[in-house]
């Protein structure tokens, strides 16, 4: 499940069991921003989209969304295809 909070609210965090693109990520904080950073991206990166637990998260929420233990994050982009 998803919760909103101010991004500054999280000060310390023990990364546990948040999956980012199929890999258990060691995040600096339980936020979507930290999840993006773990794959070298930020909330301003173009042509990407995010789903958390199979729900697409609108870009407007990327900067403020917090994650919970067990969340599954998918960060996608467009690649060559037929």
């Amino acid at each position, binding site marked *: 499940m998803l919760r909103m909070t101010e991004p500054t609210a999280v000060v310390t965090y023990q990364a546990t069991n948040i999956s980012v693109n199929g890999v258990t990520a060691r995040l600096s904080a339980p936020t979507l921003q930290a999840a993006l950073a773990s794959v070298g991206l930020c909330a301003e990166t173009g042509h990407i989209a995010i*789903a958390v637990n199979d729900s697409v998260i609108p870009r407007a929420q990327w900067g403020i969304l917090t994650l919970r233990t067990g969340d599954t994050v998918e960060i*996608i982009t467009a690649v060559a295809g*037929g």
Partner: protein
Amino acid sequence: MLGGVTFTSRLLLGTAGYPNRDALLSALTVSGAQIVTVSVRRVSLSGDSTSLPALLDQRFHLLPNTAGCFTVRDAVLTAQLARDALGTNWLKLELIGDRETLYPDVLQLVSAAEQLVRDGFTVLPYCTDDPVLCQRLADVGCAAVMPLASFIGSGRGILNPSALEHLCSRSDVPVIVDAGIGTASHAALAMELGASAVLANTAVAKANDPVRMAMALRDGVRAGRAARLAGRIPERRYADPSSPEIGLIGS
């Protein structure tokens, strides 16, 4: 005219499998294609410096696909992610039912298409040339149908021309021949049989000279379309001399 948008080219191209970015861009450019397909995948840290969509989206109408999806759930989520990432509600809906043949799972396809149309997508489904299936897809609101000519990537051309011709003659929506196109004559034949457009990828990407093959497909599509509009002669069982039969010397 597709999904309410008018295009001048009847050739759509895929973007996968080219030898390099330069070959891809040159081939797409000379082909005249305005719609190009892309797929949706997890971002990887070892990505290219310039992302593919950034390279293409100013010049082409990007058509994301759901290639590799085997369930309605995966196809719908992939479609929604593609819409968010690329800012387009157009979708090439692929719902694969068999890994070996990459045939579409037609039972799931109609229900996925219906769900996506309701969600506001312009749905272009990869399907078979079955007229009943294609009618169902049109009925649920698909903007076109995209029957395979033969197996994806096989280059074997149109294996069932009479089925394709029949489908084209009665389809309520444009028929875009997708999959199996191997060379220019296949594209020309598809258009002669009444298709509205042709989608190719491997034929161009894996040709020895992708740029030249892109030109050939462009010309094949144009030639086939012109022949279709011109109205071909009926086939005859026996010879019919073209030259006058009267006034021959010695007669």
